[in-house]
């Protein structure tokens, strides 16, 4: 029987083209249980979910004109976690399976190559995997809902579709944004520093509401203020660059899509420090307005069209893969990462079915560093706890220190955990 294969979705096309020997776009979702993870049962759960998630159990293959995803026949083997999250996925690993299932003590984690899915899709897989694991471990009956899918149902067509193609607008919206400040530091190869700020959700929500905004905008504004201060200390006024935080927008909410593949676009709200100093409230107001104005279905359709149009162009389609790779690398370095200083990816408040909630103490989300960003920030809330994960591949934790100290100054208690030895 021939193996099933699928095209990469529109957002996923760029990731195989821009990966290098040192960098690949990977993210991680993890779940901390109340008891240690049994690797045998976890392996069993991973195997049982294979038919339910055909878009996840795949490997990356190279065609003459495009990369594509091919189903794998054997499930990935669960492994003990590494000393740091998001260890580099080498080409050989991507050719075997594009996801990793890891465990350490009470925690089970899944790391995805970004061409498979985005954070929301990854979280749905993690929740379903955890539900299946808990069912095997404790004999629980966990009903589907709150992001947990029925593992015995076949996948529906909507879950596997490339929603970008369906929701692309008729007119292309090109935006000309100035480049943002590039954060720098002393590069440390073969290690990623993860600093987790564990924050009570209610105090974070209260602080955001005090500033008349949402948690995402509040955290992005605090981050922006921290970067503005760092730039102010080191760069003369005339040479300062715009400070912008890249905020991914989950398009499923805008268009009602159920896809488990990538369906996210990023916006870069921010300010130009040469225009003057900004208070936190002003930053919250500016960013909130920018996001509200940009993140409309109409506007996003135009942005999707800007990405989809080249993919559908017959001349570009006919170009061999290596030519496309060169072109995509060029586009990515000119437009992909240069418009923001750091990501602020918030998966929002996660819920779980009541039957499994007592067994889960924490859900986390970690996005890897970008090719040219040394820092990245990702957020997920579950129960009463919000985990703000800051990852970096440089030695200096100056941004983390500034960001978390600022939250403490604003009356948000932060507990710090780190993977530093």
């Amino acid at each position: 029987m021939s193996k099933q294969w699928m095209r990469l979705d529109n957002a996923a096309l760029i990731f195989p083209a821009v990966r290098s020997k040192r960098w690949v776009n990977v993210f991680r979702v993890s779940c901390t249980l109340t008891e240690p993870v049994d690797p045998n049962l976890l392996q069993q759960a991973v195997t049982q979910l294979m038919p339910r998630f055909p878009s996840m159990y795949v490997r990356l293959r190279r065609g003459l004109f495009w990369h594509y995803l091919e189903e794998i026949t054997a499930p990935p083997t669960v492994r003990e976690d590494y000393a740091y999250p998001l260890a580099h996925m080498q080409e050989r690993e991507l050719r075997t399976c594009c996801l990793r299932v890891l465990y350490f003590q009470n925690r089970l984690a899944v790391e995805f190559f970004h061409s498979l899915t985005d954070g929301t899709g990854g979280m749905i897989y993690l929740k379903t995997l955890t539900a299946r694991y808990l069912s095997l471990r404790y004999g629980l009956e966990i009903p589907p809902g709150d992001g947990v899918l029925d593992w015995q149902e076949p996948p529906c067509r909507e879950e596997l579709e490339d929603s970008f193609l369906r929701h692309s607008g008729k007119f292309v919206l090109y935006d000309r944004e100035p480049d943002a400040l590039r954060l720098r530091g002393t590069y440390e190869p073969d290690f990623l520093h993860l600093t987790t700020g564990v924050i009570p959700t209610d105090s974070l929500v209260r602080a955001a509401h005090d500033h008349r905004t949402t948690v995402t905008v509040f955290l992005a504004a605090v981050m922006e203020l921290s970067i503005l201060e760092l730039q102010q200390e080191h760069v003369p006024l005339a040479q300062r660059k715009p400070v912008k935080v890249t905020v991914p927008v989950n398009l499923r909410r805008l268009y009602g899509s159920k896809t488990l593949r990538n369906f996210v676009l990023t916006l870069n709200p921010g300010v130009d420090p040469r225009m003057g100093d900004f208070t936190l409230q002003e930053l919250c107001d500016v960013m909130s307005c920018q996001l509200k104005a940009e993140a409309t279905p109409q506007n996003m359709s135009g942005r999707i069209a800007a990405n989809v149009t080249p993919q559908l162009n017959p001349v570009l389609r006919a170009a061999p893969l290596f030519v496309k790779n060169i072109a995509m690398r060029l586009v990515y370095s000119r437009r992909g990462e240069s418009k923001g200083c750091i990501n602020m990816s918030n998966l929002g408040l996660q819920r779980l079915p009541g039957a499994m909630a007592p067994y889960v103490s924490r859900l986390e989300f970690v996005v890897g560093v970008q090719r040219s960003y040394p820092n990245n920030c990702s957020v997920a809330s579950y129960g009463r706890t919000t985990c703000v994960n800051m990852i970096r591949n440089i030695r200096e934790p100056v941004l983390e220190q500034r960001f978390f100290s600022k939250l403490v100054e604003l009356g948000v208690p932060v507990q710090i955990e780190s993977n530093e030895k």
Partner: protein
Amino acid sequence: MYCVKCGVRLTEGVARCPLCHTPVWNPVCTEPPAQTFPDRYPMPPKSSRYPFLAFFTVVCMAVCLSALIFCLKTYNAVSWSGYVMLGIAVVYFSFFFPSWFDKPHPLVFLPLFFALTCGYLLYICLYNGGRWFLSFAFPVVMLVGLLCVVSVALFRYVKGGKLYITGGLLIAIGGSTMLIEMFEHITFGTKMFTWSLYTVSFFSLFGLFLLLAALIRPMREYLERKLFL
């Protein structure tokens, strides 16, 4: 337990704050902190190019040796096998030999490529009893080599001014084509100014246009707006 500098709460038992590295002194807690990640490190990425390079090197050597043996057995002399061996040497040392190094420096290997090309052409010239090497092949290869090396050095080491560099190089390329035609004229007795005028005018005009764009800011911004990727 809190950091006195950052104000954040720390995990019990840590020796220093992970954010500001301020040492933590807690006489009550002597236990080490709970481990959040194991000590297991992933395998460092292996470079897969060395086996391929070694294999390719062996193949190249085998081809050279076979050609040499065949030539010696058949003609009792090195005849066409000289072309094969030197051709393979040029290709190997120009395109594959740099891959043995982690960061091959173009300013080392680019001159090497042109030197090898010169050597190969010299062999062909001497073997055939030609008289075109010193008056044509050598200056042309050196000229092209010089242009390439200068371009790479300028783009690599000069920050900014890319339009000036590109414009200047285009004018230089145009001028070089006229020199090449002159060498052709001296060596082979062809007519002067038959084709080089077209290339000189094309490259010089294009180069001048870029220099103007570099000098006139509104023009540069207009072009950038219209031609951005």
